[in-house]
């Protein structure tokens, strides 16, 4: 099965009330940009009723408006029972509770159970492990022949990290990326998950595997891995199986897709901007500001969604209680009123961390510093080894308006 194609009609001439910036094919073909540019200019808080997949929804496309929604969790709920945090409403009985899709106080209680995994002291411990693995992966790369960077580096590095965080059997680590892909893949994408039933089958396998790990750890002394932390945490030890499953999916997707696609995107952007690549080679200290710029420019999650609990006026529009509100990070990160020359990839920006990719407010990405750390070490070790890694073909992108994903990036390293 092939994925549906992008909607016909032009981003600039389609009547505003028929404009639908959410079609996954737009992101797959990278033709979404003019839709958001137009909305930022003409309708920064925009109501769409023409999505073939997602029903009616509001688009919030400017940085400042997105920030307003982010910090107002009393009006804009993340709760899974209303549809959670992505534009797609899963069938009611299949919606999964997970702490990203909860409001306070339950969100806060569960988040605090896993937060210590990325505390500064723990990150310092992980740094050595990450560097050793990065070196091993880079030293094993093919020379003088084309290979898929995503497969060899982006996926491999992130699943190894995730396996460590869960203390997950290392030889089975590729299950983690498979489950992650299955969790976010639209059923129309033409991939492995062709129906919600199929997805539930995969989830059942995931839950069975992790229940085995939980059972080992719940009877052992608490240890600093995510499964043990959940099994012993006061706010999580009595979770229902659906809640355990939901939180696992959150942690798996959160640790996979985002960093993976920033690893792929970063290499692509440097190839598209040879001047920046040269600047980086001349001054590796720029890695520090390049890493957040890569994360802004990639925006690995294109949006987050909320549901309004009460009527609210935003950008001159009346949002009604019950409405679906989509914060398009991918657009806010290109808003010229918030970011200077946002269309350009500039590795030495003054305030590179001022971007929306991690979200803001109480749901801000738990693993943001770990993600940055992985990218930083990767680029330090790349610069030590390779004069240049050349992208030799077009990237193949995924059919999704949630995960801004790159499935294939053909590259070559000189022999």
């Amino acid at each position, binding site marked *: 099965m092939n994925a549906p194609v992008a909607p016909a009609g032009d981003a600039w001439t389609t009547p505003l009330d028929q404009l639908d910036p959410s079609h996954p094919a737009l992101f797959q073909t990278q033709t979404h940009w003019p839709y958001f540019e137009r909305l930022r200019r003409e309708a920064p808080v925009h109501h769409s009723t023409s999505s073939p997949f997602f029903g009616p929804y509001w688009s919030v496309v400017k940085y400042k408006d997105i920030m307003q929604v982010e910090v107002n969790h009393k009006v804009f709920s993340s709760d899974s029972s209303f549809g959670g945090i992505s534009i797609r409403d899963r069938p009611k009985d299949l919606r999964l509770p997970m702490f990203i899709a909860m409001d306070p106080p339950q969100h806060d209680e569960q988040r605090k159970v896993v937060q210590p995994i990325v*505390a500064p002291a723990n990150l310092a411990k992980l740094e050595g492990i990450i560097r050793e693995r990065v070196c091993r992966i880079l030293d094993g790369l093919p020379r003088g022949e084309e290979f898929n960077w995503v497969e060899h580096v982006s996926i491999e590095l992130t699943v190894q990290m995730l396996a460590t965080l869960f203390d997950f059997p290392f030889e089975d680590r590729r299950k983690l990326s498979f489950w992650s892909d299955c969790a976010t893949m639209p059923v129309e994408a033409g991939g492995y998950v062709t129906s919600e039933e199929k997805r539930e089958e995969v989830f059942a396998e995931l839950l069975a595997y992790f229940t085995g790990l939980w059972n080992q750890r719940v009877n052992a002394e608490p240890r600093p891995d995510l499964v043990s932390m959940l099994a012993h945490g006061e706010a999580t030890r009595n979770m229902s199986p659906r809640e355990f499953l939901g939180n696992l999916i959150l942690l798996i997707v959160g640790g996979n897709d985002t960093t993976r696609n920033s690893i792929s995107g970063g290499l692509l952007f440097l190839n598209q901007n040879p001047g920046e690549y040269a600047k980086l080679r001349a001054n590796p200290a720029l890695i520090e500001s390049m890493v957040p710029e890569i994360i802004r420019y990639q925006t690995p999650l294109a949006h987050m969604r909320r549901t309004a609990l009460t009527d609210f006026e935003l950008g001159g529009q009346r949002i009604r209680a019950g409405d679906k509100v989509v914060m398009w990070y991918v657009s806010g990160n290109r808003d010229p009123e918030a970011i200077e020359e946002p269309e350009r990839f500039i590795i030495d920006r003054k305030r590179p961390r001022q971007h929306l990719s991690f979200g803001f407010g109480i749901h801000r990405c738990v693993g943001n510093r770990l993600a940055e750390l992985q990218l930083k070490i990767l680029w330090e070790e790349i610069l030590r080894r390779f004069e240049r890694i050349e992208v030799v073909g077009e990237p193949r992108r995924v059919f999704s308006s949630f995960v801004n994903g790159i499935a294939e990036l053909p590259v070559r390293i000189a022999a």
Partner: protein
Amino acid sequence: MPSVTYIEHNGTEYRIEVEDGLSVMRGAVDNGVPGIDGDCGGECACATCHVYVDEAWLAKTGTPSEQEASMLSFAATAQPNSRLSCQIAMTAELDGLVVRMPEAQH
């Protein structure tokens, strides 16, 4: 102008004059004081301008709002005297304020 003394986790001190009405976060970021990031630009939405307020100044800097308290509650390095420095606006009364930085912002 009132001044603030910022003390890095490694003990390095910076005495900075901060204009009345500006936040303690802004005073650090605009003057290149390391150890305070302020990713969200002062919206109380990221907790990367976390500081420990010197005990002697706690009464004058006030108490965190509900939003600030919940952002702080996720920081592994939080202590009872923790504040987000974007939420402390400088006044003449705070002249001489001393804040210390945690080992990292996250």
